[in-house]
């Protein structure tokens, strides 16, 4: 039986989340800003129609914002994560297996599920997600993931599809591929696009008719696989179990520049706490810690400085205190007075699954001055889950004025009893 894969993608996801609880914003231009309220990361259709591109800094479009009264929001990740979980759990009812690809998209394996009328099934999915969560989605379908992605792109772009498109039929596939630029294909980045254009491959169709062997020789195996996938030959399987992260990064830019060591150390300690929490969440340990600091590269009037330093631990750890102590030692090595720091962060790598409790690692007896205390950390995590941010390591400090700006954040409608949506 021919495989059938669907990509379900939420329309302007962050904006749609805000609109669920603010119906007055439906039909009005709305945009969501990145961390620190710096750049545009989500745009309603109205905002796209004004020509506002993804990722542009807010100050560049300030005039458009004023002129059209674009409603701006800071990122409300508590809300977006909760709404995403609702969308995904709704989708699970429609397919025997599902791969959550990002916060707002998922691949569904529909092989053998709806061969009689895939389009009708796609509409059923759309309706169910909207009804359950209030989030509009588009559904793209095809025999491979790459074709499902392409179908979704087209379903979003052309309104007459009604938000659902299926590309199992080669004739229909060719028609679409001849008018879509090759850069829109999943996995073809801007540099590959440039190279492809140079040898005369401009549309998706131009790429699809290439012999994959030749493409592999000229580019790489990934692009060759894309060629096969565009021809309906399945190369990329659904990845159901999300692989544990091989590295965890926690970093932010500050709302105001930090110059003193003390302030940087406190911010860094907070990032370490969060990174350690993530590490424990996925039941892993780390033995490699990297710290980086830097000034603002966009402000060329100021003296520039950026450094990073790494440490390899003798034993693996998941203890917030060990990670903070190590990061602090690294920070003293790279910190230099006289610069206005804009960003710092920590990266945990060499991540492995934790040993079962009570079981000792070889050489675990080495005294590193700070004994691992798994029960203590697990109690801290439990308390913080119930009462967010109630316990932290003292090194994170009390003064949080370096924290990123989020001046326009909406209510946490679905995750905080004090912030529920009000109805008259």
């Amino acid at each position, binding site marked *: 039986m021919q495989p059938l894969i669907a990509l379900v993608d939420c329309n302007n996801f962050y904006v749609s989340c805000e609109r669920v*609880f603010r*119906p*007055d*914003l*439906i039909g009005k231009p709305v945009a969501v800003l990145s961390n620190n309220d710096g750049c545009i990361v989500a745009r309603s259709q109205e905002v796209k129609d004004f020509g506002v591109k993804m990722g542009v800094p807010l100050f560049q479009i300030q005039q458009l914002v004023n002129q059209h009264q674009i409603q701006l929001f800071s990122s409300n990740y508590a809300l977006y994560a909760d709404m995403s*979980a*609702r*969308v995904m*759990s*709704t989708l699970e009812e429609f397919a025997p297996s599902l791969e959550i690809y990002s916060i707002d998209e998922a691949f569904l394996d529909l092989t053998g599920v709806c061969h009689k009328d895939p389009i009708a099934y796609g509409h059923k999915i759309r309706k169910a997600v909207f*009804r*359950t*969560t*209030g989030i509009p989605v588009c559904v793209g379908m095809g025999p491979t993931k790459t074709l499902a992605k392409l179908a979704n792109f087209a379903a979003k772009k052309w309104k007459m599809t009604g938000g659902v498109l299926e590309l199992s039929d080669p004739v229909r596939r060719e028609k679409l591929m001849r008018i879509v630029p090759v850069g829109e294909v999943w996995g073809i980045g801007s540099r590959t696009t440039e190279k492809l254009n140079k040898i005369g491959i401009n549309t998706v169709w131009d790429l699809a008719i290439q012999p994959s062997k030749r493409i592999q020789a000229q580019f790489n195996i990934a692009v060759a696989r894309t060629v096969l996938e565009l021809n309906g030959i399945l190369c990329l399987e659904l990845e159901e179990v999300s692989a544990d992260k091989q590295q965890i990064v926690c970093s932010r830019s500050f709302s105001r520049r930090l110059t003193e060591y003390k302030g940087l150390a406190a911010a860094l300690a907070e990032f370490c706490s969060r990174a350690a929490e993530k590490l424990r969440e996925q039941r892993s340990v780390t033995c490699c810690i990297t710290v980086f600091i830097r000034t603002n590269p966009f402000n060329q009037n100021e003296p520039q400085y950026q450094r990073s330093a790494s440490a390899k631990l*003798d034993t693996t750890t998941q203890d917030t205190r060990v990670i903070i102590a190590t990061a602090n030692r690294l920070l003293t090595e790279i910190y230099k007075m006289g610069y206005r720091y804009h960003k710092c962060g920590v990266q945990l790598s060499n991540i492995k699954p934790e040993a079962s*409790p*009570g079981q*000792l690692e070889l*050489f675990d*007896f*080495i*005294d590193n001055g700070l*004994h691992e205390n798994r*029960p203590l950390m697990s109690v801290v995590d439990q308390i913080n889950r119930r009462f967010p941010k109630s316990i932290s390591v003292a090194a994170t400090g009390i003064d949080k004025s370096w924290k990123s700006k989020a001046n326009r954040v909406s209510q946490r*409608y*679905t995750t905080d*009893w004090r912030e*529920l*949506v*009000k*109805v*008259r």
Partner: protein
Amino acid sequence: MDQLLIFSASTYIRYPAKSVRRIPLPLFEGKVAAGFPSPADDYVEKTLDLNELLVQKPAATFFARAQGVSMIGAGIHHNDILVVDRSIEPVPGKIVICALNGELTVKRLDRENGQWKLAAENPDYPDIAIFEDLEMVIWGVVTNVIHPL
């Protein structure tokens, strides 16, 4: 590393006393009671979970805070928490959340001579006729009210 000494002949590990580390051993789980076991032990199942009572479909269930007294006749007071299920079919007689003129409102859904309308449960508030597409207007169906006494 230097604290660690391994003797291949007898294969034992020695480390300085100061770095002796406490190794937690798993405790015997479950209670060992002196005396008779409780006769109720066989009947213990689980504690009651309010989610089970109030939430049928977690993905579709939202909470909202009621404002005002337009639905006082239905037992909805100012500041009560409403349990809203978006997946339930809105049929006449149900109490629903509606998006009207950009605002969310709670009213009873009614149908009279083919005309959909929203009715308050308070004589001081007039009924509102719905002329838009019902699917676009209905936000969810209220299933329960949480009212502190």
